[in-house]
């Protein structure tokens, strides 16, 4: 348990030291939001209607970059092998890394969400607490499988291509749910679907977070 805390602490500390990378990624997400607006045109209503989709697409593509980079820290100088020989428990290692990625992704999503309110002239119709919960649950759906797949593709050539290729089909369900909930919170929820979609999202997270930990442990033993 202590190892989990220290792995998390270590990962966040390393990212803090390389914080210009996070700033770069957040800017990248922002650029994506702008590009979507250009692609759609100046029709603000259309932008507002599909804001959830644009927002999460921006976060999704920035997150694959983030996952690739955050795992490169571990492999470029053999740090991961060193950790396993210490020995650090692989399960603690996985959840430490996954939670660290969750924190970073949430930060990224928060920046993108904030700027989309500003750029797309959005108005929140649901509760702010639920919106925050939605962001955390949504990024959790990316963080756990993302960490596993970053480890899976870590030593492969063309990781930049392989990671999104494998990860995106896997995260279709949470992306569907998180976009849906965001839209419901932004344009209103006349049919009261919100809580059930949040429940769907939470149950995805539960399945992914438990399955990926076991698979990761088996993966790094090799």
């Amino acid at each position, binding site marked *: 348990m202590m190892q989990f805390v220290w792995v998390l602490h270590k990962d966040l500390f390393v990212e803090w030291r390389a914080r210009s990378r996070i700033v770069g990624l957040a800017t990248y997400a922002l650029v994506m939001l702008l590009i979507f607006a250009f692609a759609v045109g100046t029709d603000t209503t259309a932008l507002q209607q599909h804001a959830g989709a644009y927002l999460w697409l921006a976060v999704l593509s920035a997150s694959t970059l983030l996952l690739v980079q955050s795992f490169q820290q571990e492999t470029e100088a053999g740090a991961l092998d060193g950790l396993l020989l210490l020995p650090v428990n692989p399960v603690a290692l996985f959840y430490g890394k996954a939670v660290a990625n969750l924190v970073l992704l949430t930060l990224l999503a928060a920046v993108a969400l904030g700027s989309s309110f500003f750029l797309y002239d959005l108005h929140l119709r649901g509760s702010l607490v639920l919106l925050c919960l939605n962001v955390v649950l949504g990024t959790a759906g990316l963080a756990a*499988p993302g960490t*596993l*797949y970053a480890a*899976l*593709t870590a*030593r*492969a*050539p*063309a990781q930049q291509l*392989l990671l999104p*290729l*494998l990860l995106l*089909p*896997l995260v*279709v*369900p949470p992306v*569907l*749910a998180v976009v*849906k909930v965001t839209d419901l919170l932004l344009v209103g929820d006349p049919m009261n*679907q919100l809580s059930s979609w949040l429940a*769907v999202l939470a149950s*995805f997270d539960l*399945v992914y977070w438990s*399955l*990926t930990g076991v*698979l990761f442990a*088996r*993966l790094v033993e*090799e």
Partner: protein
Amino acid sequence: MKWDHALLLSGAVIMAVGHCMGLFATPPEAYMGETGRILYLHAPTAWAAMLAYLLAFLAAIGALWTGRLAWDATVESSIELGVLLSVMLLFQGSIWAKPTWGIWWTWDARLTSTAIMLVAFIGVLVLRSVVHQPARRMVVTAVATIASFVNVPVVYFSVKWWSSIHQLPSDTGSVDTIMALPLAVSAFGTAFLTVGFIGSRRRLAWKRLSREDAAPDLPELPPPLDLEVG
């Protein structure tokens, strides 16, 4: 005769019988008419694809559990067959959908999740092709296969729920008893063919994997150096 050849042969015969029954012995389908006969091809293909992926999933668990390359050969062959069948499935679906619904593609849950499953497993095959160390490749493939397979029902239900708001998923309706027999016969034929193909493909994969991982004879131990003589 090898078991997979026997399966292939009997599968081909059974499937031919099933399709003859479906094409000539049964009346046209009530709503769709003659195009409805694609059912006898389409549904067995779908079941066979699921069977192939299920085999891949089970073999992946076996590979992680035992660490034996023989399981890896089964994973490889099953995924390839699954991918082939899913491609066929999507083509058949589109061929059927155009005259029936007037469109090639719809965001129906079954269709969409098949497409996602297909790209996921193509991704697994790509991943497999870039990892060269046999043991590592086996573990990496197995992990990705398990994750992708577990994802299939999750994608199905989420897409179903998601698309149900836009349009009601079209159901092919219940199957009349007169259609059930040819359907079952073709399904068994296709399943036999699939397993037969997996068996044949597996033998090839196993040959390649074991050649890749073949242990050459240990080199002979040379006599130790004698420092006194030197």
